[in-house]
């Protein structure tokens, strides 16, 4: 699936300068421009109140856009009511109709579309088989577990073969193990059916697992829209770096800029080299972002940066050991040490060297 930027020309869903305000004073969504290609899986990821759900509701038609246009295909859908948009939707609480059996729940969208009974029965069976719930057709939603209800909700959103399916934190109510299994299932259904999916979540691992592209929302603005890998490896600003994955932060001031790298003077006076991402001028404040697994303790090879540190705390986590240390005045500096046979002898209070490659250390807006 296309992981690069989808241009306006081949976009299937298109947000154009969309703004949304509920009270006329605060913009919940500020100037949103987003193109989604046909068959793409795009996740809107962000903390609560970041505007991601509002965007989904505008796309579904339950909230009008205050300004701007939303297109599906070539048509502006601003004035099309939800029931004529033909969009499948999965809700966080599943929204299975409690007074109908599973079969009736699934045939509901077909019935309102006036599909004949034999076709409808076939479609319901196909959809239930797709989520391996064929035996449950006569049960009531209340008789199913959360995970089973989730599958039914998924089947119901897909049974009328919509080209676009929206999912609003559909796995939020499930326990961790089930959530992970459902992530794979949704991913496989997407691959098999080729539908376009817009998925909203605040859980980054969910977003990273399933999406072709992820739009990181904060404060009503898309902070970065790119693939999982590039979000993690190349965060474009401090918010994205902090929101996606774990992150060590070091504050400093830019002293020198040279092509793609810059030299930063940290608060304790030491200078380090870092990759220049969005700092422009010498003298700017900057935040250095460094992933814990890219930090080497007592490195043997040559390193772009080498600082002194002191181990504050060791946490044993099985596959790796989290080492919390004080580096350059920051005592929340974390390094992950892989748990290998040649167990290194680390002790709390021990002084050590830490090092990293300049390309792993991103100089972001401070």
């Amino acid at each position, binding site marked *: 699936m296309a992981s690069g930027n989808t241009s306006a020309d081949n976009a299937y869903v298109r947000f154009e300068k969309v703004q949304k305000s509920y009270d006329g004073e605060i913009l919940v969504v500020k100037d949103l421009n987003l193109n989604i290609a046909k068959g793409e899986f795009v996740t809107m990821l962000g903390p609560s109140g970041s505007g991601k759900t509002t965007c989904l509701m505008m796309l*579904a*038609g*339950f909230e009008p856009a205050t300004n701007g246009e939303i297109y599906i295909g070539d048509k502006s859908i601003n004035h099309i*009511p*939800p*029931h*004529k*948009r*033909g*969009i*499948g*939707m999965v*809700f*966080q*609480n599943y*929204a299975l*109709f*409690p*007074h109908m059996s599973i079969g009736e729940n699934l045939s*509901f*969208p077909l019935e*309102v*579309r006036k599909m004949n009974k034999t076709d409808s029965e076939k479609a319901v069976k196909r959809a239930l088989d797709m989520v391996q719930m064929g035996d449950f057709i006569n049960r009531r939603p209340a008789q199913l577990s959360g995970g089973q209800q989730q599958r039914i909700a998924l089947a*119901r*959103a897909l049974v*009328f073969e919509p080209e676009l399916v*929206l999912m609003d934190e559909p796995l939020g109510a499930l326990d961790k193990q089930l959530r992970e299994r459902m992530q794979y299932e949704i991913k496989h259904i997407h691959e098999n059916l080729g539908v376009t999916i817009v998925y909203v979540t605040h859980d980054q691992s969910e977003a990273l697992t399933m999406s072709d592209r992820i739009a990181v929302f904060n404060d009503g603005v898309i902070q970065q829209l790119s693939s999982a890998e590039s979000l993690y490896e190349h965060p474009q600003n401090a918010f994205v770096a902090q929101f996606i994955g774990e992150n060590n932060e070091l504050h400093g001031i830019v002293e020198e800029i040279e092509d793609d790298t810059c030299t930063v003077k940290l608060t304790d006076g030491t200078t380090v080299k870092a990759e220049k991402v969005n700092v422009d001028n010498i003298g700017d404040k900057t935040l250095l972002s460094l992933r814990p697994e890219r930090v080497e303790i007592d490195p043997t090879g040559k390193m772009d940066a080498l600082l002194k540190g002191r181990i504050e705390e060791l946490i044993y986590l099985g596959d790796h050991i989290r080492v919390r240390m004080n580096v350059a005045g920051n005592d929340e500096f974390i390094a992950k040490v892989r748990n290998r046979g040649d167990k290194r002898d680390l002790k709390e209070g021990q002084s050590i060297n830490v090092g990293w490659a300049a390309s792993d250390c991103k100089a972001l807006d401070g």
Partner: protein
Amino acid sequence: MTDSTNVTDNVPSSATDERLLTTDGVPLKQKLAQTTRRMRMRAFMLTVPLVLFLVISFVVPIGQMLFRSVHNTAGTDVAPNFAAAIQKWNGEGLPSEEVFELFAKDIMASQKRREIGKTPGKLGTRVNYEFPGSLSLIKSAARKFKKIKEGPYKEAILKQNKKWANPTLWRTLKRVTRDYSPSFYYAALDLKYDPDENLVAADKIYQIYVSNFWKTLRLSAIITFLCFLLAFPVSYLLSTLPLATSNLLMILVLLPFWTSLLVRTTAWIAILQSKGIINNILVFIGIISDENRVQLIYNQTGTIFAMVHILLPFMILPLYSVMKTIPPSYMRAARSMGATPFTAFRRVYFPQTLPGIAAGTLLVFILAIGYYITPALVGGADGILISNLIANHIQKTLNWSLGAALGTILLVTVMVLYWIYNKLVGIDKLSFG
């Protein structure tokens, strides 16, 4: 299996043992009952005051009412010997001399005793219910019998008033001097005995109870339906508006609830009477002329208006509490699947409000069917309900047995309706909020 409780035994033998035992060898069920006994006792003690209160204030009075509707001792209180003797009479012609003698002596004795509630007048009233015109006969008999110095009594009594020669009177006397009789139920169902002791419909002008029962049912149904029509949209609004607005609206709903019933009802008089607000406005804007003011009160219309207003909160509250629990995502899901707003409402939203509708209608209907004060104040002659007739018998005519019989029929009617309702809806599905 004797060793099954031995903790050192490595074989899990309890799987084959039918009764589970604790490690001490006590049956598990017994042990469980033992450990929870204190808890159950405490829980029971907490309910004791309420149980006592219910017994004293509810079970006993209702039992008494049921009893009173079939039990009336006017006959045996006034004329105990006569009451026993006349039961042996076969009902043909006139009773024997012996019965006449006992009658005269009992009446005279009771007249002399002057015991409250056991005077000849009491018996006269009782006979009068079933044989109109006999009250004065029996009252005057108490005075006139004194003149009879010696027997034969039969002849002397018949000579005093020729009404005594009517066999129907004596048959009625035989009937009413039994302590237990269903006759008040017959009266409550507009039935009477004809001269040949057959049950027939009462005279047209006395047929008031059955038609009033039907009217009570009909008005209660109308009131319930109107309450539902008015309450549904309001409850929907309450459950969907933002909290601050819905709280304000809720206060408006509850405000009449907190106001005295009497005040509210009299307010309706001010609004509905022929020189009241509504009529004045209608005259003012020229819809009706001053001479043709609409009669909105002291009839069924008045009862319906006032009772719908008073019972509305009982419909709104259960509806609201049910609607509050229906997440908006259901409607959204239905819409996203292609249902028009109306279809989504009809197929998805409305069915989920049924527990609230069922609870609300049951509550309003049962309250309406026994309503007393509002119809008494604004119902006039036409708009009164069965409770008003019951109250009339308890307070004014003092025919408590008939009042009790009417009350029992009302109680049974409500219970039958409740039973049907339960069959149709299922009481466990109700949600009163």
